[in-house]
């Protein structure tokens, strides 16, 4: 009996293992070689900024750069201490704006995506088409009309106004993604929920949302990045006061004023990149499944 079970296991394991054994050593080296080279190219720019961030400004512009040269964390301490602008205040603003955008955009696109996935209603097609259209218009050109509207709504210079603007950028793509994802959740689940007496909203909130985690993770990632790194709208719509800037805007000003301080710029960049990379790391295992089902269904 035990013998049978273990031999069965061996047979089962043989499936995927055989594939690897199929490959000649040369092909294996080629495969790993290609992946290693691609990974190096993909990581190197960030790695190089990190290396530069540890160097004093004068060492960062040497004609023959070295890996380490008088390296220290001085650049970081000076930036965090506020020598180069009100870094911590910018950081706080960015976090608030990016998190608000993520929450609102994901919630709005989840309800819309669910409605588009489950219900047939007049205007659904034109709604989805208008989302595609929104992607096509160069948003920058909307800045003047948008500026007027934000003034009319009394939201000019406010965090919430900027969050709404970011939502219009993030929501169309997120809705597409989530609609595709909801399409892969069997609608039997909805029907079972309705039979058990849940309202359409109850079904959505209690049954479908927990099942859609991978899709929600991807859209959160996308919405967060949309708001985190944006420069043009943030500089146009937030008030010019130093303490209400976002990181992206503050850093942009910093770049213009300190063209030669590459070491400090690099350190500030790394500090800005860290939260985005943390969010990325949290959601990365959902990325493939979440994005794929969205894109497959279009």
């Amino acid at each position, binding site marked *: 009996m035990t013998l049978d079970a273990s031999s069965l296991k061996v047979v089962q394991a043989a499936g995927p293992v055989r594939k690897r054994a199929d490959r000649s050593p040369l092909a294996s080296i080629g*495969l790993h070689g290609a992946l290693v080279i691609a*990974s190096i190219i993909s990581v190197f*720019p*960030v790695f190089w900024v990190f290396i530069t961030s540890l160097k004093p400004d004068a060492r960062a512009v040497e004609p023959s750069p070295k890996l380490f040269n008088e390296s220290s964390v001085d650049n970081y301490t000076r930036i965090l201490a506020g020598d180069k602008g009100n870094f911590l205040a910018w950081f706080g603003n960015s976090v608030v704006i990016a998190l608000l955008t993520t929450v609102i955009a994901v919630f709005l696109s989840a309800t819309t995506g669910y409605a588009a996935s489950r219900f047939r209603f007049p205007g659904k097609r034109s709604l989805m088409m208008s989302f595609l259209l929104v992607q096509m218009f160069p948003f*920058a050109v909307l800045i003047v009309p948008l500026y007027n509207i934000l003034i009319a709504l009394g939201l000019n210079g406010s965090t919430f106004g900027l969050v*709404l*603007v970011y939502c219009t950028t993030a929501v169309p793509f997120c809705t597409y993604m989530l609609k595709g994802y909801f399409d892969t959740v069997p609608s039997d689940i909805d029907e079972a929920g309705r039979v058990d007496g849940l309202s359409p909203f109850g079904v959505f909130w209690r049954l479908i949302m927990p099942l859609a985690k991978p899709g929600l993770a991807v859209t959160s990632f996308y919405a967060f990045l949309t708001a985190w790194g944006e420069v043009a709208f943030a500089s146009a719509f937030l008030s010019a006061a130093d303490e209400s800037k976002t990181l992206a805007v503050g850093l942009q000003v910093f770049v213009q004023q300190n063209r030669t301080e590459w070491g400090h710029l690099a350190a500030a960049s790394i500090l800005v990149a860290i939260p985005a990379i943390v969010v990325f790391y949290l959601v990365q295992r959902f*990325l493939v499944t979440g994005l794929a089902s969205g*894109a497959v269904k279009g």
Partner: protein
Amino acid sequence: MRRFLDRYWYAYAMVLPVVVVIAVLVLYPLAQGVFFTFTNINEGNIANPILERPATYDVVGFKNYLNVLSGGESFGAFWSTLVRTLIWTFSCVFFHYTIGLGLALLLNRQVKGRTLYRVLLILPWAVPAFISAFAWKYMFNAQYGIINQLLRSVGLPDPVWLGQSNWALVSVIIVNVWLGTPFMMVALLGGLQSIPGDLYEAAEMDGATPWQRFRHVTLPGLRSVSSTVVLLGIIWTFNMFPVIYLIAGPNPNTRILVTYAFERFFSGASRDYAIASTYGVLILSVLLVFAAVYRRALRKQGEVW
């Protein structure tokens, strides 16, 4: 009407917030933007609510379109800029797709350290665009950039990457390929994983070579993912402003339609909103025509999208 609402109210309730936000913050500004293209509006004559100055711009009919479409240098040399935009868009999307597909195929195999490779390869997507722009600008620097340092050390010529030559266009394309490949790779990897393994086994039974399996199983299986991500990729790349603007600045050798709209919008003494909006409407028209053609081409292949 009552029955209509009874049937659909929850669907509309779920859609309504988005429709309101999009209508107020996109469609209305879009309409106003289109109106601006028929005026001579600029910084000097726009209504300024803060200074309480009324608007003094005039309607000028199709003059902006005539000026832009005549292709004059002072209006951004529309046709040659359009050609450059097309070169930029298609070379970026071509490399995004081919490199993304290649990496996705590699990652879809049984390979040790797959998760680690995947995390490293998606990383460029997670870095905010202006940081990547900064990183590449530093690496492309002609004197102390690491790229020229490498080229010199192996005895190759070291061009001034971001100067006034077509090398600048090559540089921004390289950066954008680096930035955009992870998205394609992830989407295509998901697509590959949704192709049933039986198909490959059946093909193998029938004696199909690896190339035939790729050609007749993988590519058709990826068609619907591909059609979506390529369309999105083309739209996004066509309108990709931050990469070019932050790396090359207002360099005429990297000027595409969107960056020129920005230049007219933000810089210069006059801040010509009318010309910027005209460019915006022309960009929208090009993309609409393209999307319609693309959709028709897909439909001919029996793809309903």
